[in-house]
């Protein structure tokens, strides 16, 4: 039943996604763009994932039935017959799951399409008969189930009949843990964290961090957790206190047995938490990022050779008028000097800067003759900040100017110049002759710039390009394109993360479910010697909770530090979005935990 449900679930997920992917409207409008690529990649990821997920659940399914296979073997069933039985069973369950999954999927697809159209901001995607999606799902999963029906018999192969009959009921040696490896695990994790916090930079530091933290996490489960639990068993007053005796000792074994699984779950969750938080933050802050990299949304740099200047400025203002957008204009003369690279060194006068600063609500600058202040051409991020050295000078044309200060926030769109200096009005006037280029910058500041994308598109279509005479840069049109892409990535990412998340929880549950027959006998006997049902429930709950929540808590901790490294590369703050994502996942986890706990307790305590 559990196997059937997990198969149905994978098929349902795959099918819903396919319905979206193959929707006639999406196919028609997005076939070549990043949208289609991202969705196809998502579909492929779900397919690979389904294979692993179903493979894992079939292993569980067969292991719980090992005594049945033992009995059949004893009655003289040959290996071949047994394999055929398992293969046939798998195919039948697979087909049944496919029918159920697709039927349920068909019903749900309407809502799913509604959701997708809401997220992709396209007009409502109407319900349709997804023949293509059905064919693809059917063919894909038929292949998966055929593969699995070939692989599944391996799970019960090469065992003596007695082993099949007795399952894994043999007593085991208590797991050992070395204090040194435990310490090493802790050390590796904290080393990774310290590198992140101290923002140490050395070659391949990201790779070093991930390897250190991953190795540390593995040791955390295989050594440290066992070590700590074994220490607990030697504290009599704690260990011999009521149900502690049973669950602590049992957990020592479970931890060691499941170390690899817990490790995989932790890493999976870390990846899905951090990517989700990052995507969410990026998506939520696209406008913020654009507002920062384009302090003024419409920018027109006109060189002295630009004979279209008047026409273009009229085009800009009339288009903005047509769209009913209110705007403020500013014009600032600038000079360009040779810098040795494609991006020239720019200079503007203090008077020009102060006019821009007033428009952008920034501090005005006061500069004497012979002095200069550098203004960053990039947004204010940890790794793009300019460091000012003492007695630093800058040469512009024939002048050598003393650098007296730095402004870390850009005023022109990112990368408009290689470097940008503000100099005194007198020096600016004196330098006219020696500059490489000179020109005037026109800025159109629109308050409600995110709504200006259609105006920006119209202008971009008509203005053309001629880099020798002018440069035109606007943000609203790019913003809209980026926002759509991020929305899509977020949509696909969220979908896949949630699937991973549910699967990760199921994996842990499957491990408990594999042992449920054995544990059932154990609890029945414990209840005979006077363990109350409440105590039995408590033991099972504590164990399930520890194995269920610890990987997620560790993953959450890892993600916090992973996002920390990401933060240095982003202008917007990720923190609040990370919290939102974590809180959301945690709430879902608790819900999921209680669902699985109820199921587990029911099968554990049934007589």
């Amino acid at each position: 039943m559990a196997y059937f449900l997990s198969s149905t679930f994978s098929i349902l997920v795959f099918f819903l996604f396919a319905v979206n992917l193959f929707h006639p409207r999406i196919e028609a409008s997005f076939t070549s763009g990043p949208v289609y690529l991202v969705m196809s990649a998502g579909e492929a990821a779900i397919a690979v994932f389904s294979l692993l997920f179903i493979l894992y659940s079939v292993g569980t399914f067969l292991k719980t039935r090992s005594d049945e296979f033992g009995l059949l073997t004893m009655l003289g069933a040959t290996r071949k017959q047994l394999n055929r039985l398992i293969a046939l069973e798998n195919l039948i369950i697979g087909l049944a799951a496919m029918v159920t999954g697709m039927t349920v999927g068909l019903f749900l697809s309407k809502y799913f399409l509604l959701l997708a159209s809401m997220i992709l901001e396209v007009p409502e995607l109407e319900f349709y008969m997804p023949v293509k999606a059905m064919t693809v799902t059917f063919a894909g999963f038929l292949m998966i189930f055929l593969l699995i029906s070939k692989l599944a018999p391996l799970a019960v192969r090469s065992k003596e009949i007695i082993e099949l009959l007795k399952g894994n009921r043999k007593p085991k040696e208590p797991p050992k843990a070395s204090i040194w490896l435990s310490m090493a695990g802790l050390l590796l994790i904290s080393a990774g964290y310290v590198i992140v916090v101290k923002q140490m930079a050395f070659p391949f530091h990201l790779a070093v961090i991930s390897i250190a933290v991953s190795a540390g996490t593995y040791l955390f489960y295989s050594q440290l957790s066992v070590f700590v639990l074994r220490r607990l068993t030697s504290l009599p007053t704690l260990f011999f206190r009521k149900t502690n005796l049973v669950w602590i000792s049992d957990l020592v074994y479970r931890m060691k047995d499941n170390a690899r699984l817990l490790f995989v779950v932790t890493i999976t969750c870390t990846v899905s938490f951090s990517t989700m938080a990052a995507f969410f933050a990026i998506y939520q802050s696209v406008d913020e990022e654009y507002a920062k990299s384009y302090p003024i949304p419409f920018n027109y740099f006109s060189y002295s050779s630009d004979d279209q200047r008047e026409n273009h400025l009229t085009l800009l203002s009339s288009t903005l008028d047509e769209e009913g957008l209110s705007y403020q204009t500013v014009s600032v003369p600038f000079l360009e000097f040779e810098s040795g690279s494609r991006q020239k060194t720019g200079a503007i006068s203090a008077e020009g800067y102060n006019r821009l600063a007033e428009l952008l609500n920034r501090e005005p600058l006061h500069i004497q003759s012979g002095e200069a202040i550098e203004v960053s051409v990039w947004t204010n991020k940890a790794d793009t900040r300019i460091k000012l050295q003492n007695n630093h000078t800058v040469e512009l044309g024939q002048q050598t100017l003393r650098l007296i200060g730095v402004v870390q926030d850009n005023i022109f769109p990112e990368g408009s110049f290689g470097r940008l200096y503000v100099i005194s009005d007198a020096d600016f006037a004196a330098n006219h002759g020696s500059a490489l280029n000179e020109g005037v910058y026109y800025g159109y500041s629109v308050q409600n710039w995110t709504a200006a994308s259609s105006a920006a598109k119209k202008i971009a279509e008509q203005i053309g390009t001629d880099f020798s005479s002018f440069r035109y840069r606007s943000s609203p049109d790019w913003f809209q394109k980026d926002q759509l892409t991020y929305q899509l990535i977020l949509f696909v990412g969220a979908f896949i993360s949630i699937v991973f998340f549910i699967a990760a929880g199921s994996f842990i549950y499957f491990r408990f479910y594999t042992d449920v027959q054995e544990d059932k006998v154990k609890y029945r006997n414990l209840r005979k010697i006077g363990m109350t049902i409440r105590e039995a429930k408590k033991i099972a709950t504590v164990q399930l909770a520890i194995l269920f929540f610890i990987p997620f808590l560790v993953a959450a901790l890892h993600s916090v530090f992973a996002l920390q490294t990401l933060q240095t590369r982003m202008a917007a703050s990720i923190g609040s979005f990370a919290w939102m994502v974590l809180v959301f996942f945690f709430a879902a986890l608790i819900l999921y935990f209680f669902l699985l706990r109820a199921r587990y307790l029911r099968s554990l305590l049934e007589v």
Partner: protein
Amino acid sequence: MNMLEISKVSKIYEGKVSCQALRHIDLIIPKGQFVGVMGPSGSGKTTLLNVISTIDHPTAGEVVINGKKPHQLPAEQLAVFRRRELGFVFQDFNLLHTLTVKENIFLPLALDGVSVRKMNKRLNLIAPILGITEILNKRIYEISGGQAQRAAIARAIIHEPALLLADEPTGNLDTKSSRDVMELFRHINREIGTTMLMVTHDPTAASYCDRVIFIRDGSVYNEIYRGEHQNDFYSAIMDVLSFMGGDSRDIPTIRN
């Protein structure tokens, strides 16, 4: 004083084919008596044991253990009753293999929230009697079947139960270990005065009891008391078994 009083207990398993496992059983066990229950397969002896051990409810009749009527208690209190008043010894020992011998023995006391000091005191009292002092810190996979059963007996008596119930305690042991375990039961019965009820197939094991009750088809068929000599008692048991008939498989022809 009577430790166990059973009056007119019946048990009917409802189902497609209803089956009456126990028919109006009356049984009184005075304090300190060591009673064996014998009978062929399907005679109802396990059902009787389950009813006495309160894990199964009788359809009719009354069970009084140590002056209390456990079947009237709600489930939670019933479990507490079991861990305070009853001790269990099983055929397959049922020791938790994740624990050491000592931890297994402590289990019922730990569940009851008894302090570690008290637990150790009790253990020091009974460990020499059971001869398990050397194996206390070993794991279950490190000890033999006979030792495992002794550990299980220690677990069953450490809380000084009113009644010790044993279900085929020698069923999984070889002849030598079986004899040791039975000697031990009798020793505990004499030394500590524990009241005991043992279900068994094995006439040799039964010959260690003070009194043996024979059950057939859900009712008491016969009962005999032990005299001076164990050998005579063994013959008497064999006589009843062969007279009772039942399933010949249950009667070993030659033992010892």
